[in-house]
């Protein structure tokens, strides 16, 4: 049996698939600060026989929590002489342009714990000044005295020549084996010293906590059952073994959320959909990501605590491209200073939550608006819902201001929330040169199925899929993952000057390194699959385009193909190409998969009639139509492959799907809800 557990802010989710391909789900409370307890709780609650678990896959928020709550280790930094302040100067940017009280992100290492040593490598990787090991020893003594728990080492041009970082780490490990130490070049091989240094620092910062957590989880699991395959979800949409995860815990920073995106790609493959917009609506945020031709997009342009007003902290590790906005079910609707309606980014959270929860929430939320307009029923809640309180909150806070009914105000909230989400969806599709009509919208999370059908009509998407296990879809995605490592090496080289031998040598080195990693994880080389990319640009330009390139030995054709693919992709992304301009490689990127045998998901084939699945008929308030009697169905009783015309509602545990009169839906062979636009 394969089991996946995903720790979220409120719940720890579990999804399993047994040897017959049957799926089961469970939820239990998240248990900070001892998160492993929640994991064991949910396993127990699910009734899964622990001795039957053959594979265990885990997504965790331990890393992101340690970062955002500033609960990591006391961390020190060693840099090249003259550059200890790079971490504090950062990039000097100020997204909040007109704010003279702007708060620059505070570095994770205070200045007195940032020490410099003599050493220097130039941009070609040549050593100009040897490492002064005496100074490293002085640093060690000083850090010991200051009670440092983790050390990051970051030298200039180490992406090109990591020798001095390796020597420093070696020395620290010899002289001070208890301390955790991170070399920047072990985490990222990309240029830009601030970003690389910050990444190393954050890895060091979370490493002690991550190690403790993984060890505890490992021990607890061991006492329960001997599971030979234990994996942790990484931000790149793949997994790594527990042991590896302790070395570079920063790779787990988006451990949970990316699994849903990855799951969308896998589910797409199962049902023959290669181009997908994955869309996940939770309580406080909505996340989306575009999957083209089955490929989840991964980049190292990742930041924490960055938004339109804050510079944030860069983390140069591979993370699935996700656009996240502050709009979820709990987002609060409010009137701004000049009288306009806004929704989010403030959220009522789990407590007090929406007004509907009756836990003291007074601010109307998107969930309350969905309730008042009949999209949700009081029966969908685990609370005693007082509809009058909800109506009155929407009326006093929103309706009165515009002189309209509470129902119209609720519809306004839904429309504004949808508009916010629509802008996020456009950001990843239209603005990147993709036509949404070529994509299927795959919606999950607690609120995904509620809003997706309306958004699909706006966006022009032809098909919406609400997958099986949609409220716990991230955990479902984890069940389907492979081992995955991404290797990104900065390698500045003009395409025309490139010798084929030289680039072959580069690729081979990266792939040899990958095979070594996999062998340490017990993965046989026969099951390893490489995908190569070159991050390319026009000479003189800054931004790169990720170009898939040939495997194996390069030929002149491979080079020419890469250049011509680059021109095409550049035109797609940026609307123009410069065919006469020189092209340049900036990074070599190898994605290495260690293929794991996947469970076969059983088909459903449920017969019966749609009428039997109908729970009730309830009035739902629609734009331009008013109240419409709308049939409500139970997802668990819907027969497969029978069509329901909109408007209609399908309810399941923890999620509701709403379709409109231009739409129809059916349950496919696997139990996914497929929503399509009526052909006119």
């Amino acid at each position, binding site marked *: 049996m394969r089991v996946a557990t995903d720790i979220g802010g409120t719940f720890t989710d579990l999804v399993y698939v047994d040897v017959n391909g049957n799926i089961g789900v469970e939820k239990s409370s998240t248990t900070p600060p001892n998160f492993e307890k929640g994991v064991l709780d949910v396993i127990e609650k699910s009734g899964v026989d622990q001795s039957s678990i053959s594979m265990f896959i885990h997504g965790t928020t331990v890393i992101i929590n340690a970062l955002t709550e500033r609960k990591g280790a006391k961390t020190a930094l060693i840099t090249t002489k*003259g*550059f*200890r*302040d*790079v971490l*504090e*100067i*950062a*990039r*000097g*940017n*100020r*997204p*909040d*342009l*007109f*704010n*003279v*009280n*702007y*708060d*620059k992100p505070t570095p994770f290492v205070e*200045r*007195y714990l940032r020490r410099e040593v003599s050493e220097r490598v*130039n*941009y070609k990787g040549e050593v100009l000044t040897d490492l002064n090991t005496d100074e490293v020893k002085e640093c060690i003594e000083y850090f010991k005295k200051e009670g440092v728990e983790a050390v990051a080492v970051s030298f*200039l*041009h180490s*992406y090109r020549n990591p020798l001095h970082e390796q020597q420093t780490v070696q020395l620290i490990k010899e002289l001070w084996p208890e301390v955790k130490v991170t070399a920047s070049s072990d985490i990222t091989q990309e*240029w*830009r*010293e*601030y*970003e690389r240094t910050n990444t190393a620092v954050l890895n060091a910062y979370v490493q002690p906590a991550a190690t403790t957590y993984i060890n505890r989880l490992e021990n607890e699991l061991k006492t329960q059952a001997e599971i030979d395959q234990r994996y942790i979800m990484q931000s790149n949409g793949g997994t790594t073994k527990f042991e590896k995860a302790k070395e570079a815990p920063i790779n787990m920073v988006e451990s949970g959320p990316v699994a849903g995106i990855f799951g969308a790609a896998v589910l797409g493959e199962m049902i023959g959909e290669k181009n997908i917009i994955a869309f996940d609506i939770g309580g406080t945020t909505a996340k989306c990501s575009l999957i083209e031709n089955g490929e989840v997009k991964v980049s190292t342009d990742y930041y924490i605590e960055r938004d339109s*007003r804050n510079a944030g902290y860069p983390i140069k590790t591979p993370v699935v491209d996700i656009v996240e906005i502050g709009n979820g079910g709990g987002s609060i609707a409010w009137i*701004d*200073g*000049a*009288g*306009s*309606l806004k929704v989010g980014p403030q959220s009522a959270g789990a407590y007090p939550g929406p007004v509907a929860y009756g836990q003291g929430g007074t601010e109307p939320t998107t969930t309350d608006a969905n309730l008042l307009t009949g999209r949700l029923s009081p029966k969908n809640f685990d609370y005693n819902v007082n509809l009058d309180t909800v109506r009155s909150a929407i009326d006093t806070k929103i309706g009165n201001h515009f002189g309209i009914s509470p129902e119209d105000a609720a*519809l*306004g909230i839904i*429309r*504004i929330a949808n*508009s916010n989400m629509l*802008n996020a969806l*456009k950001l990843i599709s239209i*603005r990147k040169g993709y036509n949404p009509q070529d994509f299927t919208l795959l919606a999950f999370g607690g609120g995904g199925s509620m809003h997706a059908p309306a958004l699909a009509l706006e966006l022009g998407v032809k098909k919406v899929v609400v997958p099986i296990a949609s409220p716990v879809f991230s955990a479902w995605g984890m069940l389907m993952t492979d081992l995955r490592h991404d290797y990104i090496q900065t390698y*500045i080289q003009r395409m025309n000057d490139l010798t084929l031998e030289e680039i072959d040598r580069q690729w081979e080195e990266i792939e040899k390194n990958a095979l070594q990693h996999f062998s340490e994880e017990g993965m046989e080389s026969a099951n390893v699959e490489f995908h190569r990319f070159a991050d390319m640009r*026009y000479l*003189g*330009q*800054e*931004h790169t385009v990720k170009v898939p390139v040939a495997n194996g030995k390069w030929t002149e054709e491979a080079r020419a193909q890469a250049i011509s693919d680059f021109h095409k992709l550049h035109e797609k*992304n*940026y*609307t*123009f190409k*410069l065919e006469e301009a020189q092209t340049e490689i900036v990074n070599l990127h190898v994605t290495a998969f260690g293929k794991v045998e996947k469970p076969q998901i059983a088909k459903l084939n449920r017969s019966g009639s749609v009428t039997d699945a109908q729970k009730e008929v309830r009035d739902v308030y629609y734009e331009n139509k008013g109240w419409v009697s709308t049939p409500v169905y139970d997802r668990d009783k819907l027969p497969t492959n029978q069509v329901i015309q909109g408007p209609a509602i399908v309810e399941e545990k923890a999620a509701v799907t709403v379709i409109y009169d231009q739409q129809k839906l059916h349950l496919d062979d696997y139990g996914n809800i497929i929503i399509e636009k009526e052909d006119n």
Partner: protein
Amino acid sequence: MTHSTTIDPFTLEIVKDSLLAAGDEMFVALARTSMSPIIYEVLDYASGLTDAKGNLLTQGNGVTGFIGMLTFMVKETLKKYPGDQLKPGDIIIINDPYQGGGSHLSDVGLVMPIFHDGEIIAFSANKAHWTEVGGKDPGSFTNDSVDIFQEGLQFSCLKLYDEGKVNDALVEIIRSNVRFPDLSLGDMWAQVAALRTGDRRLQELCEKHSKETILAAINHLLDHGEEISRQELKKLPKGTFYAEDFIDTDGVGNGPFPIKVKVTITDDEFICDFRGSSPQVVGPVNCSYTGLVSAVRTIFLAITNPAQDVNDGVFRPLKVIVDPKSIMSAERPVPVSNYFETLLGSLDLVWKAMAPHLPNRLTAGQFLSVCAVTLSGTHQDTDEPFLIVEPSVGGWGASNRKDGESGQFCMADGETYNVPVEVAETRYGIMVDEYSLRQDGNGAGAGKYIGGKGVIRSYRALSDGQAVTVTFGRNKFLPWGVADGHDGSPNEFYVVASNGTTDGPFGVYPRYKLDTNDVVQLMTGTGGGYGHPKERPADQVAMDVKNGYFTIEEARDYFLVEVDPVTFDYKELAGR
């Protein structure tokens, strides 16, 4: 709300958001397609949409300095091409500093009318700093020009595209008159692509919601901005406020030049009167009137509501008064290359006048200079020419509740990024010896809350015959402290020759020659402090010493705290 409408408020809001999103999209499109570091790293550009009359609807900004400019470019276009002289597919190019929307020649603007049903409904516009527009020096903007003709090509509101057809002659003139035509023209095409994105999005909106709805949403947007502004204005102290200061030099040996402002705040107006400031000068620190308006708009936003969406409605309460032909309202043909230093000086005047009266909104003074550095030469490995054009980071002022930020770009910049050392060393014929926070040692920026630190960035030339042009303002007059906080330190630079001799300090210097292993040490200023240093908690002072922000002597002399150099234990001295 002055406009009533029958369109429901949520549709208006959604269309308004769509307009803002279109503005964002145009902005991102330009950065991602540009070939010049000054655009994609420094984001020295702006883009936006105006209504059919040129009123700004939305503007994406990489820097604050462009905030008044797009709207005036469009108004200039309407003035030059009245009636039906603008056609679908036209794109206008404009960089004339003395016309509407002009700053200096390097900032090249493009304007495109957006037609729907044969009628102009809006304009799409952008303005970007080109790496090259010709002129006497590489990089075009220079600190010792004496007239506009030394500063490069002038485009006085010309049709780059005529009904969709590009003006080839104009393109060829640009190609043969600039030093890096691929960069300049590359940026121009990127600007064109961004304008068309705006056009496309507006057409889609019109088709979806009808033209009438769009026009109503535009009015809604402008009224919304004005309403928020007026509410903030009500909260400000009423009265008249004064400040005086100086612009260091004009770069050709003259100066300092006095500048002054009288700020009058009433219930519904915010008036900045700069009359009595220095007349325009010989060297290139003259600022255009448009530049002055941008300066005032920037500080007005900082004072009222820095978080709001920016449109012309926001600025309706604002008035700017200035003498003609002053240093901040220059007229043809005085040079304007370094206009931004006077733009900053004007902005800082209003800031300084208001800071004591708005302690919760305004900080002490900052290093206040773009601190522009232009370094040209030949790469030691490739023998190819290289050109660095970059602003520098420095210290910001402290406020009544926090220390100033260290190593940030000045107020005229914004979402501006420094060039990473590793990128600079790969691309340019230099090595960076040091990039660190400055330790002044003289109590600069001391206060209850301390000024942010300036930085030291040192370039070592790796080939002979390099030339560095440095334009550091605030070299003679320091960033000001508030409420007994100390002033900060000056922006300055030194050159340490390979033989060990040191030259400097300088503030403004054209084309200082560097040979192999000569080092130029660029040092930016520390910001002003806020409150008396003796009010800073002693344990904090001890930590400042441990962190190397202040010396033991500074702790003793200015903060009245004796700090042990080894243990960093401390004791408070008499007088605290």
